[in-house]
């Protein structure tokens, strides 16, 4: 088992943003995490990465209890993430942003740069390498965050709405990218409100509502669950999800 969270609770004052949530992540899983706004998905994420101290519960990584580890230690172990509200290094270029990630595995500037360029190439941003990061729009920033995270050579990558703000065409390209990442041996947890992403990528889905898990299963099971439709999907999206056929190949048939 790669990553395991047991009974995570996170309270802000009397309000429990995450309430006794557990999850296990096997090697080469793609776990989808969905739920209404404010359900506690990002909070749960932050508890896994160490950005927030859990109120109770444990986090295990490769069998090791990392509950009290600082975020940078977890990154060192191979846990990488992106932020829902992009945390770009505004004063740097795109390349330098990615180099920060690459520096985790090498202290040499040249090596870090080479690696950062390779990662940028892989995510399709190499032409932007020398542009100031502050000139990117939200979608660009999110992609940059993916690149940065990849540069740390993670075992597990947690994506918090990394595809928000992309149009349908771009979403497809992004899905391909994530598949490619997955194929290279990285286990993923993705939070998305774009159902197409969940439907085509997730091997398992977990649904949050008011800090609690209300459903889990395959994408298809979950999206046809009436409780999920009621709390989260709405009729229109449920219909769209129902019509969705998972695709396995890059550039295959689409919705």
């Amino acid at each position, binding site marked *: 088992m790669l990553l395991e969270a047991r009974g995570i609770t996170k309270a*802000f004052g009397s309000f429990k943003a995450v309430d006794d949530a557990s999850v296990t992540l096997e090697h080469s899983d793609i776990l989808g995490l969905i*739920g*209404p*706004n*404010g*359900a506690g*998905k*990002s*909070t749960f994420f932050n508890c896994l990465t160490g950005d927030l101290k859990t109120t109770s519960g444990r986090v295990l990584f490769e069998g090791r209890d990392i509950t009290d580890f600082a975020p940078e230690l977890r990154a060192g172990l191979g846990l990488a993430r992106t932020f*829902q*509200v992009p945390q770009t290094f505004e004063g740097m270029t795109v390349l330098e942003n990615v180099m920060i990630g690459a520096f985790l595995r090498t202290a040499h500037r040249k090596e870090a740069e080479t690696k950062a360029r390779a990662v940028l190439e892989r995510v399709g941003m190499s032409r932007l390498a020398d542009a100031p990061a502050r*000139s*990117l*729009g*939200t*979608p*660009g920033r999110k992609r940059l965050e993916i690149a940065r995270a990849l540069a740390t050579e993670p075992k597990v990558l947690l994506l*918090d*709405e990394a595809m*928000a*703000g*992309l*149009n*349908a*065409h*771009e*979403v*497809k390209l992004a899905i391909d990218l994530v598949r490619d990442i997955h194929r290279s041996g990285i286990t993923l947890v993705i939070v998305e*409100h774009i*159902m197409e992403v969940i439907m085509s990528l997730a091997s398992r889905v977990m649904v949050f509502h008011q800090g609690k898990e209300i459903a889990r299963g395959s994408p298809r099971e979950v999206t046809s669950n009436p409780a999920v439709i009621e*709390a*989260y*999907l*709405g*009729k*229109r*999206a449920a219909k769209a999800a129902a019509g969705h056929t998972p695709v396995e190949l890059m550039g295959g048939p*689409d*919705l």
Partner: protein
Amino acid sequence: MSGALLRIEHLEVRYGDLIGVSDVSLEVPEGSVVALLGSNGGGKTTTLNAIAGLIPVHSGTISFRGEDIAGQKAFAIVRKGLALSPEGWRLFVQQSVENNLMLGATPLHDKSRQAALLERVYEIFPRLKERRNQRAGTMSGGERQMLAVGRALMSDPKLLMLDEPSLGLAPAVVESMYETFGRLHREGLTILLAEQSIELALEVSDFATVLQVGKSVLSGTAAALAEDPQVQKAYLGAG
């Protein structure tokens, strides 16, 4: 078609030496919903920000109800009846949800309508009402989006500009939000919408303009654009 509320001609905007948009023209007829389409970095945000006065216009004209507003300060433009829900939300993260909404009502001349407008926002986004005293900086991503849109609605604008309003919202919320836009539209509100979910955008809007690399390359009625093979290929993933 009634008269144009907003008309942009050959807008060029620069960020220092970089060109944000090079040549954008578009028209927003009074009472219509206009969608601004285009891929990542196409210039949608730049255009909206330029209209709102957040970034200086390099050349071109922006006329709002016949008055050229290019070059005016943002606070003055907003007071004329434009409101923008900007990219990245730009909330006042240290202040409460309700304070944020009340700040949105600043340009309102008739302060007595504040309460009613607040109720309207709370009706569209009940979550905001639940969290009215929470600090905006602790809200979830989707909650922030609701707040940004709600705040823009608070000034009861003549022209509502929305930069990717559905970003980060749960599907059910998007659905109800768009229903609300439809209702507001029927009540006479003019909306200029930049939206990544093009299918959805074309569904609610009357007209649309496509931006490509900082230029407006296509415009027409929403229905016509939805059929346009070029649009289908580039944005709707067809082919």
